[in-house]
């Protein structure tokens, strides 16, 4: 009796267990307005009561359950909490990397053999075109000239349109050098971000004109730069496009306005004066130097009330300090003489960056002869040079 009972139970259990229980939901996804096929995209279906993490999915088209282009088909009884008549479920196309998705569509589960979900359009990302990045000086095109010790306004302009006619949202842009990338952190030398670009939505028809500006510092790296501008539609699909430009080299140097040697006795050497030199460009520089008394080329370092200081008696050291009182021979040996002609000296002052302020001291002295009295004044012209110095 027991064996017979067991056989009957197993037989019946087998019959009941192996019959499927399914309730299919079918739907259509139309190709996007920017020409991307819906086939191959993934549809997710979920019950909002239990959240989207509990879901069933299908691939649209021939490779999915439906086997038919533009259609998908899921069994909602395969959800962890199996669907029942009266449930309201949601479906949408997931963004699987090509920035196409869909809005949510709902369906009520009925007692029919299957239910049809409303058709949905594969949503396109924002279309971005006509990107142009430049400064206010448009000729020559695609070249940016920075401003010494200051900032240059660079504008990245583009035309944006949501193919579905929706608004252009969260327009932003990043401007970065060839050694950097879109995802790098902001750095005045290499990477700038504007997260609140100006959107003129009444530009033309459904298109918007988007302006993203950057205040680019004088020490931004010279070379190729890219502006990548992007925006989202109302389904958070982001479109982007780029334009390139070139930031020119900027040679610039800054020094304090006056070197005051104070009172210097005749036939003596002045105290050493420190003159700080700052690189206000975007490339490493050497120094070009020359001096004059009243007019360039006059062969003087200073013109005095009585007499003058010849050009060779004003001297400098660009690398090391020699403080304290020194003799004439020490003055001659430890300092280089100023010249009346433009002379490039090796200085190797790098450009500014986040950890280097690009300022370096230089050391100056002057020697007076007996015939000199009264007040003396002259000019020293500092220049930045990319040439190799001596």
């Amino acid at each position: 009796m027991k064996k017979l009972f067991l056989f009957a139970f197993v037989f019946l259990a087998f019959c009941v267990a192996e019959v499927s229980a399914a309730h299919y939901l079918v739907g259509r996804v139309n190709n996007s307005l920017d020409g991307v096929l819906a086939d191959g995209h993934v549809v997710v279906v979920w019950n909002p009561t239990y959240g989207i993490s509990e879901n069933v999915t299908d691939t649209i088209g021939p490779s999915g359950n439906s086997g038919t282009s533009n259609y998908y088909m899921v069994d909602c009884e395969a959800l962890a909490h199996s669907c029942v008549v009266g449930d309201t479920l949601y479906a949408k196309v997931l963004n699987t990397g090509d920035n196409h998705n869909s809005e949510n569509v709902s369906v009520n589960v009925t007692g029919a053999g299957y239910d049809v979900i409303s058709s949905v359009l594969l949503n396109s990302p924002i279309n971005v075109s006509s990107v142009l990045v430049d400064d206010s000086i448009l000729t020559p095109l695609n070249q940016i000239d920075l401003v010494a010790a200051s900032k240059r306004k660079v504008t990245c302009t583009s035309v944006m349109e949501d193919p579905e006619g929706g608004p252009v949202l969260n327009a932003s842009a990043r401007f970065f050098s060839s050694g950097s990338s879109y995802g790098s952190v902001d750095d005045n030398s290499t990477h700038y971000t504007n997260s609140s670009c100006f959107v003129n939505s009444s530009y033309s028809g459904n298109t918007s004109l988007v302006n993203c500006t950057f205040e680019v510092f004088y020490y931004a790296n010279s070379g190729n730069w890219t502006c990548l501008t992007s925006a989202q539609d109302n389904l958070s699909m982001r479109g982007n496009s780029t334009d390139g430009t070139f930031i020119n080299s900027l040679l610039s140097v800054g020094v304090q306005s006056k070197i005051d040697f104070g009172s210097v006795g005749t036939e003596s050497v002045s105290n050493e004066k420190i003159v700080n030199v700052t690189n206000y460009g975007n490339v490493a520089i050497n120094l070009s130097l020359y001096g004059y008394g009243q007019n360039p080329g006059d062969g003087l370092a200073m013109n005095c009330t009585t007499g003058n200081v010849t050009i060779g008696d004003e001297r400098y050291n660009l690398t090391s300090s020699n403080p304290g009182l020194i003799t004439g021979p020490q003055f001659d040996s430890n300092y280089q003489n100023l010249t009346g002609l433009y002379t490039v000296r090796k200085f190797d002052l790098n450009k500014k960056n986040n950890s280097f302020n690009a300022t370096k001291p230089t050391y100056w002295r002057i020697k007076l002869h007996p015939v000199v009295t009264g007040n003396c004044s002259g000019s020293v012209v500092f220049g930045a040079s990319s040439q190799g110095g001596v």
Partner: protein
Amino acid sequence: MKFGFSKKKNILILGVFLILAISIMLVSSLSNSSGILLREGKNGVFFNVTNSFNASTLIKLNPEVEVVSYKEGNVTFGYVNFMKGLGDDFEIMNGMPYEIYSSENSTLILP
């Protein structure tokens, strides 16, 4: 007395099992004659046919059939009578259990 009651109960349970089993077999055996009787809604069906055929063929012959499905492991495969037919147009095999959803009471016509 106690032993007698238990024996009667076992026989009763076994009887219920057998009736259910015979019902399933009856549905299956009907496929050999004039067709399988379907009620509106879900029907568990075994086919007893000599030549297999596809789900699409079954639906063409029986427009009232909305869905044909079967289970393999934990996965359910189905063919839905929507548009020109959606889903895997699987082969219906002899002796396998299938679920057929019919929109009305009907007799299933087989190829």
